[in-house]
């Protein structure tokens, strides 16, 4: 079978609780900064847990004219603004009809639905409440007139979006694709996770024996994808492969052995045409729920074999919370920056390793290392599992 055309991640842009551009995001990760704070934008007084990774002020863009008054859309567009600043991508440097947009989200513009049901009859509320609303708002802001796709594989959405974006390029449907993920903190999701008792009152402690749950965060994360033969100038790296699999087990809980995640990892390695021995680093989903981290550890051991014990594995969710649809894209960018900058961010708040999570989860502080090929894993509601294999540019 012919080798699929390689797809390059030419640039990336982010807005996160720990920085509103890629450099600030990276600096905060390697210095162990935390973006967790008291949530201020929506009422939380009645909730058991009132903290999260909130972006306090969207400072990147001063003029929001023409952009819907929708938090999710604005997070996405703020990330796009960072991307465009780095890649000189606005105004579009190529035929707008050849530029696609693929975004992943767990929640879309659901906050607009909350507003509509509360009596706000603004004409944009319902169209923005549909989960593909923010993706279309981004395309409009960019001036992109190629395919616009929204995927929603829960918290694996960012990974799915990057893979679908790469497919668009390989199929010749676009010459450049802006792909990634986003999700905004709103009362809907905070109340939901609070009710499920998934949130912790403690710090988020991935792979720590004291871990007691996750905290939610909000973010936008976008990459500029192009075919390798079309790539000019600097690049972050290459998207080598993607795999997905469903658990087919439970609506809200992961399959206890992590078989779905294992299948997704194996599929991603096969798609990338690499073996477990080629993997130099893993970015784990690492939500810090008691179940997730144990299951993920088991799945990594089975999928990577001995290599799982030899490579650094981190989770950045202790720094910024679980950013849902944005998480996989942010983690992919972190992997690529690690390979470029020679530093692996630590798993924040991992202080007392869990004997059941006995891999090298990079506790303490950032560690020197220059991984070349990285694996990034994601798991989501409904048994959605996704895995990306990435190669850093040197």
């Amino acid at each position, binding site marked *: 079978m012919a080798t699929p055309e390689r797809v390059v991640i030419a640039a990336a842009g982010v807005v996160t609780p720990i920085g509103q551009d890629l450099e600030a995001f990276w600096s905060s990760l390697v210095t162990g900064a935390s973006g967790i704070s008291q949530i201020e934008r929506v009422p939380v007084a009645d909730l058991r847990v009132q903290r999260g990774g909130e972006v306090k002020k969207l400072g990147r863009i001063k003029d929001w004219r023409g952009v819907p008054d929708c938090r999710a859309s604005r997070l996405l567009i703020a990330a796009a603004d960072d991307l465009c600043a780095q890649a000189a991508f606005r105004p579009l440097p190529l035929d707008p009809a050849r530029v696609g947009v693929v975004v992943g989200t767990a929640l879309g513009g659901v906050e607009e639905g909350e507003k509509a049901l509360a009596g706000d009859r603004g004409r944009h509320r319902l169209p923005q409440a549909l989960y593909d609303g923010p993706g279309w708002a981004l395309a409009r802001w960019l001036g992109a007139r190629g*395919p616009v796709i929204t995927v929603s594989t829960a918290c694996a959405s960012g990974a799915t979006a990057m893979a679908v974006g790469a*497919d668009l390029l390989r199929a010749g449907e676009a010459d450049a694709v802006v792909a990634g993920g986003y999700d905004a903190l709103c009362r809907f999701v905070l109340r939901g996770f609070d009710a499920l008792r998934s949130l912790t009152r403690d710090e988020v402690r991935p792979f720590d024996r004291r871990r007691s749950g996750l905290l939610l965060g909000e973010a936008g994360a976008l990459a500029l994808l192009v075919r390798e033969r079309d790539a000019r100038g600097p690049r972050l790296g290459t998207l080598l492969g993607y795999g997905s699999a469903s658990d087919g087990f439970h609506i809200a809980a992961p399959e206890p052995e992590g078989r779905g995640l294992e299948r997704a990892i194996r599929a991603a390695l096969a798609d990338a045409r690499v073996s477990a021995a080629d993997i130099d680093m893993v970015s784990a989903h690492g939500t810090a729920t008691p179940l997730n981290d144990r299951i993920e550890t088991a799945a990594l051991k089975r999928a990577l074999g001995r290599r799982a014990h030899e490579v650094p594995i981190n989770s950045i969710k202790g720094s910024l919370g679980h950013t849902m649809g944005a998480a996989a894209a942010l983690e992919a960018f972190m992997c690529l920056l690690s390979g470029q900058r020679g530093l692996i961010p630590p798993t924040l708040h991992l202080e007392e390793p869990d004997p059941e999570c006995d891999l090298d989860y990079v506790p303490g502080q950032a560690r020197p290392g220059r991984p070349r090929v990285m694996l990034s894993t994601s798991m989501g509601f409904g*048994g959605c599992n996704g895995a990306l294999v990435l190669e850093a540019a040197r």
Partner: protein
Amino acid sequence: MKAPAIRGLGVLSGTEAKSVAGASAGATSANSTLAKSADWGSAGAISGPPQLKGLKNETVDRKSPEILALPRPERPGDRFRRATRECLLARAAVDAMLEDGKTSREAIAGERTALLYVTAAAYGASNRAFIEQRGGVMHFAYTAPAVVPAEVAIEFGVAGPYGILIGGAPATLRAIEQAARLLEAGTCDQALVLAVEIFEECADLYARHRRSYRWPLVETAACLWLERGAGALSFESARDGWRAAGAVEPGERFAVGPLADLRDWRARATAGPVELSGRWRGEHARLLWSPDKSHARDSAA
């Protein structure tokens, strides 16, 4: 790209749903328009329209556009005690597909079956129920679009590659293309393209934007079962400028439109290529499927 072959197709449509004796009136005029029996496969008995608390006082007035609703299928067992209407309809669509394919559920189980789910708005009902604080703690999990294919994956043991697209008819056409790509690459041996749209619980919200849609809105659930085939498939999409967000073609079935069209085409057993098309938010898409014996229902049998 090589075109996949159709192994089965199940479509449940609000234009054809059974009217059940004793069923109470729905929130819209749906029941008055429910036609005679249709192709419900083994979906089983229909228990009546959705019975969500809080809807009674939100009945759309007589001037409101019409929604042709699908009744809530009966719960097939205790595992579905919390399942939403869209989940139950998805399951029923898969059952209808299996019946169309004249086979049992074991045929689609396993790691070599891909599942691609598409919807524009089916999650709206569950989102609304949660926002209005109806349903228990676990209801939050059911607000995720991912839960509809999850229920299907759990029920039928589907554990292969997985994708969920949000959008109207073009997204479904793209899902069929993705399924063809997965089959051609050998990533899976068979692929299911599942699509569900329900509207009734949010009828008043759609009515606010009545000019954006070509009424009536027709609730539909469908599942298409694909295997490797020998024909050719081509997909193309184009934009026709920026229209008011939400404006759609007579695609009142939103994402499920192309699968309903495909069913109609099979029923006619027409020779020649199938052309499926649709529009959403100003994007046109078209899928051209070359002749393949498997397309026509009679040939498939």
